[in-house]
């Protein structure tokens, strides 16, 4: 699980920094990252939509990966320390909310839907970001499969 976590963390950055889609129209090129997508909606006054996109596709997955990583490290090295035990307890409490907010799989499908919708008008290309994002999505799926919240709670009993 530690390996999956680190892989996810490494992939998280290119997935968010590089553009997920490139659009070529009459010689001009437009690219977008996940964050830019959220910002462009928010800047036109639809900040509810912008925040929803930002939380579901950027913030929640990031926090989820970080939270799991911290949990693993605490279980491994610092379980005796009451301060870290407390942190661990709080992280576990928030875990179910974070999983619910993480919507990478839906974002993945959205990318394909947009490609089909827009391919009618213009040419679209996938960037490095698309690749990183899909791998990130697969790694996070496996991470969530490996993660067992019951087991994590039981660590506190000892």
């Amino acid at each position, binding site marked *: 699980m530690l390996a999956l976590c680190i892989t996810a963390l490494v992939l998280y950055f290119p997935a968010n920094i590089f553009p997920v889609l490139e659009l070529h129209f009459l010689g001009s090129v437009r690219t977008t990252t996940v964050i830019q*997508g959220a910002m462009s*909606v928010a800047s036109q006054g*639809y900040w509810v*939509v912008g925040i929803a996109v930002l939380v579901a596709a950027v913030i929640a997955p990031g926090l989820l990966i970080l939270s799991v990583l911290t949990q693993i490290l605490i279980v491994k090295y610092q379980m005796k320390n009451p301060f870290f035990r407390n942190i661990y307890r709080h992280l576990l409490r928030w875990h179910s909310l974070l999983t*619910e907010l993480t919507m990478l799989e*839906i974002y993945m499908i959205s990318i394909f839907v947009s490609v089909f919708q827009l391919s009618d008008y213009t040419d679209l290309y996938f960037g490095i970001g698309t690749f990183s994002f899909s791998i990130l999505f697969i790694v996070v799926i496996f991470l969530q499969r490996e993660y067992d919240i019951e087991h994590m*709670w039981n660590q506190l009993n000892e």
Partner: protein
Amino acid sequence: MNDTHSNSQGQAAGITCCPTCAKLCRIEDNYCQRCGQHVQSRDYASIQKSWALLITAAVLLVPANLYPITVMTSQGQVRRDTIFSGINHLIHLDLWPIAIILFTASILVPMLKIIGLATYLLAISYRLPISKKTLMTGFHIIEWIGRWSMLDLFVISITAALVNMGQIFDAKPAPAATAFALVVLLTQLAAKVLDTRLLWDRLEAKNDKN
């Protein structure tokens, strides 16, 4: 003796499950020993909370479907699409699979969620003759599939960011987007806030063999 055992509930024995960490706790403790979360046997106020959120969502569903959700400008022509007309347009372009995905995610799912949750709440309050297995399966489906309504919003954000070339080719979100986002959020909350244990009590009292 054996029979009463298989039907007995934690409430009678004075124990309950912690909602956060699933540890068995005594009800009189009030707080879970392991995670410190407040525990109570049943949350009776959750029906009201759930109704409130659900009704708000149902009201918001009207503007979400009536107002345009995107404004597309293509070579000077402006087109305002509501959720439904957008899907209609896709069917005209022969993009059937995409049309079906979008129809399910943005029309079918929110409607089914609101109707389904309302049925569920009514079943708790008025003991409707629906088997609890059906209701519980329905509830889990509602909880899981509700996330997929976000699809439409993601698509809007991607297109709005990509397509911004003024008069020639431009896409912008429109008022319905906010309403739709709130519908998704509120229905998700309504499902989350509800204490599903209430259903088991009410139907247990009726002693149905489902």
